[in-house]
């Protein structure tokens, strides 16, 4: 698989605050990649850097092989997307907005515009002024713009905002179809895990500007639905981690300053405790985390201060 989007050690600082720090990941053609994180985690900042809104302080972004800094126009011509809310010229009709967008991209035919209008289901209202649209209609219109020029990378920031359940379902099906049938790399950000679960092939979880976790959604679900996660509050945690690694590496879910999360069955808890205690590690408590996807997310993004 080729990496359509390659992010290499990218950082962004606002004032003295490092909003995105050393983030690296890749998005491949034919997959839906979910970018998960709580509000203010740095999702939108990362997306804005990829789409040219913000300058990149450190690191490199490659789109379809083109460096965004050095080959801006070529890199950008393969991107389509919506950042935050879709914003269009309100005094113009949806169709004029689409025509204007089409002009700035190569190879968008009249037929293509009609096709896209049908794909997003706007054929009845495309000639109305955008200011008469509801948020859901604007989302559809924005999506139409985003896919108009058949981009290789589709970036959608919170795309389900304002959509009704039917709309969400249609969007989900459309994105899957685009990725799996048209071999587009789809990059979706969200703070809603349940949505991601249904839509994404792979997820990356970001918090406080750091990318914590990039895995196929199946593994995330396995993590969540397999053996329950037990949190061992230990000291020192780094030495505990070293001790546990030989036997339990695949089961370690997260490591913190004062704790280690391990997915193990009930019967495996005493041997681990024994191992830790016999090696002079202070074990303060063992805590069984709830076994749900939401909790997995929260435990990854919010539980304690991550060290890795």
């Amino acid at each position, binding site marked *: 698989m080729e990496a359509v989007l390659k992010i290499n050690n990218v950082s962004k600082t606002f004032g003295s605050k490092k909003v995105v720090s050393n983030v690296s990941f890749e998005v491949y053609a034919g997959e839906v990649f979910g970018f998960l994180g709580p509000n203010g985690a740095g999702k939108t900042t990362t997306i804005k850097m990829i*789409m040219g809104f*913000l300058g990149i302080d450190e690191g490199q972004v490659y789109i379809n092989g083109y460096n965004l800094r050095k080959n801006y*126009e070529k890199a950008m*011509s393969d991107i389509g997307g919506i950042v935050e809310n879709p914003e269009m*010229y309100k*005094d*113009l009709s949806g169709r*004029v907005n689409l025509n204007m*967008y089409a002009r*700035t991209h190569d190879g968008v035919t009249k037929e293509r515009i009609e096709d896209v209008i049908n794909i997003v289901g706007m054929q009845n209202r495309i000639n109305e002024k955008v200011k008469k649209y509801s948020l859901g209609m604007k989302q559809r219109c924005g999506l139409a713009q985003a896919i108009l020029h058949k981009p290789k990378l589709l970036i959608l920031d919170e795309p389900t905002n304002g959509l009704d359940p039917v709309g969400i379902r249609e969007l989900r099906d459309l994105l899957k179809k685009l990725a799996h049938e048209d071999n587009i790399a789809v990059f979706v950000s969200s703070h809603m895990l349940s949505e991601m679960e249904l839509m994404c092939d792979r997820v990356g979880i970001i918090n406080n500007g750091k990318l914590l976790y990039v895995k196929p959604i199946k593994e995330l679900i396995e993590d969540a639905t397999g053996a329950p996660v037990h949190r061992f509050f230990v000291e020192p945690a780094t030495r505990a981690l070293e001790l546990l690694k030989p036997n339990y590496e695949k089961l370690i879910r997260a490591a913190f300053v004062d704790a280690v999360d391990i997915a193990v069955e009930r019967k495996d808890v005493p041997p681990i405790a024994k191992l830790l205690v016999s090696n002079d590690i202070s074990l303060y408590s063992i805590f069984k985390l709830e076994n749900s996807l939401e909790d997995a997310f929260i435990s990854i993004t919010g539980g304690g201060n991550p060290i890795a």
Partner: protein
Amino acid sequence: MRRLCALYLNEMTKITHKISVIIMLFIMAALVFGIGGLMLFSLKMSTANNIQNNNDTWQTQNNQQQLQNYKTQLADIQAKEKTAGADLANLQMQEQSLKNQIDMFQYAADNNINMNSQEYRAVAMQKLFTYKDTVSQLKSYPAEMLTDKQKKEIATDQDYITRLQKVIDNKDYAAYIVISNEIVSNNSDLTDDQKQIEKDMNALRLKINPTGETNNSIYGVDNTEQLISQISSNKYSLLNNFGYVSGSQTAKSLTTTDREKLSNDIVVNTYKLENGMVKVDNASAIRNSAQVTMMSFGLIMMVILMMILAGGCVSSEISTGSIKSLIIAPVRRWKILFAKFLSLLTVLIVSGLFLYGISILAYGIFFGFNTVTPYVFASGGTPHVMNYYLFFLAKIFVNLLPVLFYMVLAFMLSVVTRNTAASVGISIAVFFAGSIVSSLITAFAKGEWVKFLPFSNMDVTGRVFPYDTTLAMLGGTTAGAVSTTIAFSLITIAVFLLLMGYTAFDSFTRRDIS
């Protein structure tokens, strides 16, 4: 390049859908037609009042009044003479002088000559009576006391008296000019060069007006004499290499440029005289001011329109978020801004043409298309005539320079402040207060730096079209206080435009859009 065109087309689409543009252009048209209509109304009113006739009547009455006054004075003196002792001779001389005056006014009244006019017969008559005065004074001495020179003077004066009499009786302007030239030749105060200038002026007078008839009421003056005196004063300045150059407050020694300017002025005035472009009646004054007012108000509307468009071009897109669809486009940022600038420039030119069209149309409808006069200018001593419609177009386009300046100012502010209200507000404030502040600075500040202010250089029209009598002032009015050449002004304004443009592009390409 293709994408720049696409962005430009998009910007044009956006602007043409803006209701504010249509409203402003509509207001512009309404103002132009409204002013035209008002001016026509005032013209109609003044004609209806028939001021001209009243004026003639008043002047005739005035002449009668003067005649009456002299007669009363004469009666007074005659009464005093009866009781006078030593100063009898003096009183008799006054009596004689008054009698001459009375003769003159009586004669004028009989021959229907307006003594207060500059008509040649009035002038000839005044000369005639001056000679009569001199002759009668000389004759009052005993004949044996007169010198040969004085005797000769009596002879020539009497010759003039008879000839001037003939001029007045026969209305013979050509003969009058011949006499004038002789008087000039006999004037020993003048040098040969000066005599030549006076004779040239006389020749010009005869050439442009063979019959010598003029329309002399206040509301229907032609400015032949004014132009001729301008020409002769310019010729004197050239002769002495010292004098006033238009725009200067004091007389000074002439430079080469001054000399060139004065000679060109002479050429233009001569051309105007020879081609009958000398009428300055009430109607033409109103027509000129209508034309200027229409254009000035149109230009003010245009400045406001351009400031609103430029002041919102980036900031409004940022505040509504529509900038996103521009940033996502696969084009470098400078192209986005450049397309915006080009679209503003297009609106500037199109609205300039629109103003040209409606001004011409309104003027034609209200005052008639045939009342326009071409623009006459001179270079290198030869007169050139510019078609009126071409001239008016050129004039509007020269006036677009200050509009462009304020547009770029608002454009830069829009990019830098990202606040539409601030950018439009500041640029409108600068537009209205700039020339006032600049005048204050010019009045109080000493130093050369004042001439580097943009406002000191904004009035380009007056210097591009120095022979235009109907100037519209959009820029500063400080051109007189700070004298700079047109090239200096253009360079200064260009530098300011480049600086503002650079600031805008630098800010737009480098700053984050969040």
